[in-house]
């Protein structure tokens, strides 16, 4: 049986030489993403800003203008409509009701769903949630703490297991991934809710995973080819791990694609974030974190260099070996 090979054997792409371009592109995209977040803002869900969300399912696709006028007529503030999944499902977002009186919020939910089922026979509510400002503040805080801790924890792990340059380059790459994902949310106006925090943490986990594999290969090659130039060594390591990087990304993207297309609308934002995160994470593993190692001045372990020079290291012979493609 002829087996499938997405990446041909023995690729020799000069990723390090491309890094100037890659940094430029990365910087431009990052600025664009930050700009988008700054200008358009993020579409926070009720989890994070408080307020109430009602998802209503209609018998037939309704006219959004009519729904909006029905909702606005209830005197509970301006409703924001968003189509979710198919054309028959709409979510209605309303601002948090004045005061802390829960009765007011309940009344609004009842009024709106009541009015909608009167005006649009056969429509039913699928779900609703209300969150007060106090809880939403806590949720934002916990979400931020979780993301920060994850970045820090994993950065520390990379520093302990590898050199400090690996830690720094990994953290930079992750921040890049997060900025890109945020930019994506600003662009698409997908709702940022509690689930998205989980998506962010998963993206972080995956992205690190990807970088650790390459870092691990760089470390291995640093021991194997002690005299090789660092640019060449990083190129070699990235090329050697390229089939794995691409294979894994493609597999996970296949799984996510199934979830994105078939998993229902509730998870759509979550899966979309994940999908983009995997793509961005793969890009940053190859172009951002590995190339950054050179900029940060990673060098072969000085301790080992000295032993090699003194000729005391039993493995010196291996160090002399020439790389297969060098």
């Amino acid at each position, binding site marked *: *049986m002829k*087996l*499938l090979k*997405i990446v041909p*054997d023995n690729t020799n792409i000069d990723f390090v030489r491309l890094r100037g371009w890659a940094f430029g592109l990365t910087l431009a995209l990052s600025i664009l993403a930050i700009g988008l977040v700054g200008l358009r803002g993020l579409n926070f869900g009720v989890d994070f800003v408080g307020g109430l969300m009602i998802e209503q*399912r209609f018998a037939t696709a309704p006219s959004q203008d009519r729904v909006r006028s029905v909702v606005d007529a209830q005197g509970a503030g301006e409703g924001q409509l968003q189509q979710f999944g198919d054309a028959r499902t709409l979510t209605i977002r309303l601002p948090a009701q004045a005061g802390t009186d*829960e009765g007011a919020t*309940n009344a609004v939910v*009842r009024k709106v769903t009541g009015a909608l089922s009167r005006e649009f026979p056969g429509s*039913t509510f*699928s*779900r*609703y*949630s*209300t*969150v007060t400002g106090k*809880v939403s503040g806590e*949720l934002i805080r*916990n979400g931020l*703490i*979780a993301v920060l*801790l*994850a970045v820090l*924890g*994993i950065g520390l*792990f990379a520093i302990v*297991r590898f050199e400090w340059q690996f830690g720094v380059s990994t953290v930079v790459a992750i921040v890049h991934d997060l900025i890109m994902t945020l930019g994506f949310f600003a662009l698409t106006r997908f709702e940022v809710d*509690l*689930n998205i*925090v*989980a998506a962010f*943490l*998963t993206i972080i*986990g*995956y992205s*690190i*995973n990807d970088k*650790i*594999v390459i870092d*691990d290969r760089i470390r291995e090659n640093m021991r194997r080819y002690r005299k090789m130039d660092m640019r060449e060594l990083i190129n070699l390591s990235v090329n*050697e*791990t390229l089939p*794995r990087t691409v*294979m*894994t990304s493609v*597999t*996970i993207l*296949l*799984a*996510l694609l*199934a*979830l994105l*297309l078939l*998993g*229902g609308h*509730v*998870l759509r934002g*979550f*899966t979309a974030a*994940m999908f983009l995160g995997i793509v961005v994470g793969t890009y940053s593993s190859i172009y951002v974190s590995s190339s950054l190692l050179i900029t940060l001045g990673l060098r072969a372990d000085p301790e080992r260099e000295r032993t090699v020079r003194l000729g005391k290291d039993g493995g010196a012979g291996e160090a002399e070996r020439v790389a297969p493609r060098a």
Partner: protein
Amino acid sequence: MLDFPRWKVAWIWGVLLLLSALGAVSLVPERYTAGWPVQPSRINLGLDLAGGSYLLLEADTDGLAAARLETMRDQVAAEMRRGTPRIGIGDISTRGGQLTFLLRDPSQVDAARERLLTVTGGGAGMSGQREWDITVVDTSRFVLKPTAAGLAQAVDTAMGDATEVVRRRIDALGTREPTIVRQGTNRIVVQVPGFQNPQALKDLLGKTARLEFKLVDETANPADLAQGRAPVGSQVLPYPGNPSGVPFIAVKRPVIISGDQLADARQGYEQQTNAPNVVINFNSAGGQRFARVTQANVNKPFAIIVDNSVISAPNINEPILGGSASINGGFTVEGANQLAIALRSGKLSIDLKVIEESTVGPDLGRDSINKGITASAVAVLLVVAFMFLTYGRFGAYANLAVVINVAVIVGVLAAMKGTLTLPGIAGFVLTIGTAVDANVLINERIREERRRGRSVVQAAELGYKEASRTIFEANVTHAISGLIMFVLGSGPVKGFAVVLLIGIATSVFTAVTFTRMLVAQWIRRTKPKTMNI
């Protein structure tokens, strides 16, 4: 590396098959397992999949502190008035979170302090800590300040009661398996699966339990009683714990005293027999009223009624003058404690507010779970096909590992009686993706070693050895983010993290140890000279 003794093979298969079997059994629908001697533990469906309501209630602790101060004021006023000599006080105030009053006769300072100590429980309350600081300023002004420990204790007690009230109320709705847990110091999480009327739920939780004392009508005819008929001026009430066995009792309509005149109720012990009982305290007005009524009705029973259901009907043995009474009647400590809680919760001493709520309709839940299962199945199929096309025999091994891994995760989740949420399904799908990463790493490494000219055995050995280190590191980082989600996350995030963490643990075992065994057995069986990878 490729050496697998028979016991090891048996052990690996044993663990995997056992866990997979747990997973398979937990999916058998309940109607088929009804006759089984042992019910399999199952995975609970989260509210987003089962439909239902989630409420986060927060208690009003400021309100509690204020109410506590008011009660103390009533008690102090009553105590000063009651004893001999009567101690005159005035200018009583509860402003600024403390109780102050002025003594009319400064020479009574010591006597007043003595009486205050009996009201505030002396130096030690239930927790052994002082609950009130008593100071005297300007020789005749008393200041009672609640201590932080005392207030915390009061909040804790009130929250315990409130949780109990909430549970009793939701149980009364007859809903299936509600979850009611305290969260932090002043919150209660309520999850009611499948309940479609959150409004009724909230109405119920917002209501304060009604406690009433009424005299029992002993003239009622038992035959009439059984038919729900009571004499004129009386009513028939359910009495589930009636010692006579009849679950009804007739009581006279007038309310002797109601829950808002009750100050406290706790479990105690009867002095002579040391049998557990329940001690109740009325506030001053209630105490006076109770004294009058009991004086006139010695040797008659009265009914203690919560929400129109009689909890007990003790006999009035003697007039009760001190504003406090004990309810005796063959209690166990638990029974007495439960009644005390019921009495206390009759007066829901802390206001509960809904601060977060979400309700998922049953259609959306069903829709979500169907779509989630379809998506997972398609994801598995896509990944399996892709792996097989890329790695052939080795892909097939990896696929077997992935399928077993899915069954094992289900098994572990069921054994833990875990909850599956929609993000949990996403975690499943993602685990399928990352689980094959280990095999991708191994197989790519084997390919690489083959290209370098190593023999089949060497390449396989090196592939597993070198890749294992990378796999370990990659999974540790993944687990770090999973743990953070588990610890800090709430609701959906936690559900996702649980599946992810289980998946990380099981996938390392299936993807590395299990496939290595399969590869080793293949090599030993066929002694291949080449490998198609």
